[in-house]
């Protein structure tokens, strides 16, 4: 996991350096990098929010304040969004690794 993360970081640094060297491509590269991290961040925020909702629903159900149906749908939504974020993250990291393995 650590190696994958460092690969991603290295890739990002390289991308930034390449963008600086290219000159006119800087804004675009930076925009793309920011775009992806923004997407991942917002997906993660959504997942965290969904799991918070699920947790509060669970607590409410234990206290007898929420319907079982609501609890189950909240947990299911949290599970799905977390799974989506994980799948996307795995895919991206494997792409980074693929690029890192490329012979230069």
């Amino acid at each position, binding site marked *: 996991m650590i190696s994958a993360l460092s690969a991603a970081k290295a890739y990002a640094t390289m991308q930034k350096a390449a963008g600086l060297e290219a000159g006119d491509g800087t804004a675009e590269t930076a925009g793309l990098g920011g775009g992806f991290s923004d997407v991942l961040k917002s997906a993660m925020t959504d997942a965290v929010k969904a799991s918070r909702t699920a947790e509060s629903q669970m607590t409410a159900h234990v206290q007898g304040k929420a319907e079982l149906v609501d609890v189950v749908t909240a947990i299911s*939504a949290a599970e799905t969004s977390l799974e989506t974020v994980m799948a996307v993250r795995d895919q991206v990291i494997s792409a980074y690794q693929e690029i890192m393995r490329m012979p230069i």
Partner: protein
Amino acid sequence: MADVKSLSGVTQAIAASALKAQQARMRIIAENLANASSTSRTAGGDPYRRQIPVFQPTTVAGATGVSMARVEPDPTDFKSVYQPGNPGADPKGYVKEPNVDPLIEALDMKEAQRAYEANLNVIETARAMESRTLDLLRK
């Protein structure tokens, strides 16, 4: 569910609203069956009147779900049974019995059960479709 964005989430929210509606219907059926022999406590008075749940389309997560709008009394006549010793009997000795037919309630219950199962299947299928799509990313 406060904010549902994904289409699958909306599907599940709608099915969940139907599950809640069916549970509410089950509550009414339970009330009817429990009071199937609740006669009047005063002489010549009316016994328990059967209740009927009324469903209505409701906006759930931006789509049309369902909810129980109200509960209406069943206007059909009560059965009269000759029971002079009953405290609820009228001067002629007849007691009004609730217009609850256990057979109808049992069928209603079966219908609620089937509808509940159908909506559970909707949730299950929606989830399966979503997770199958996600499987495309995994190798």
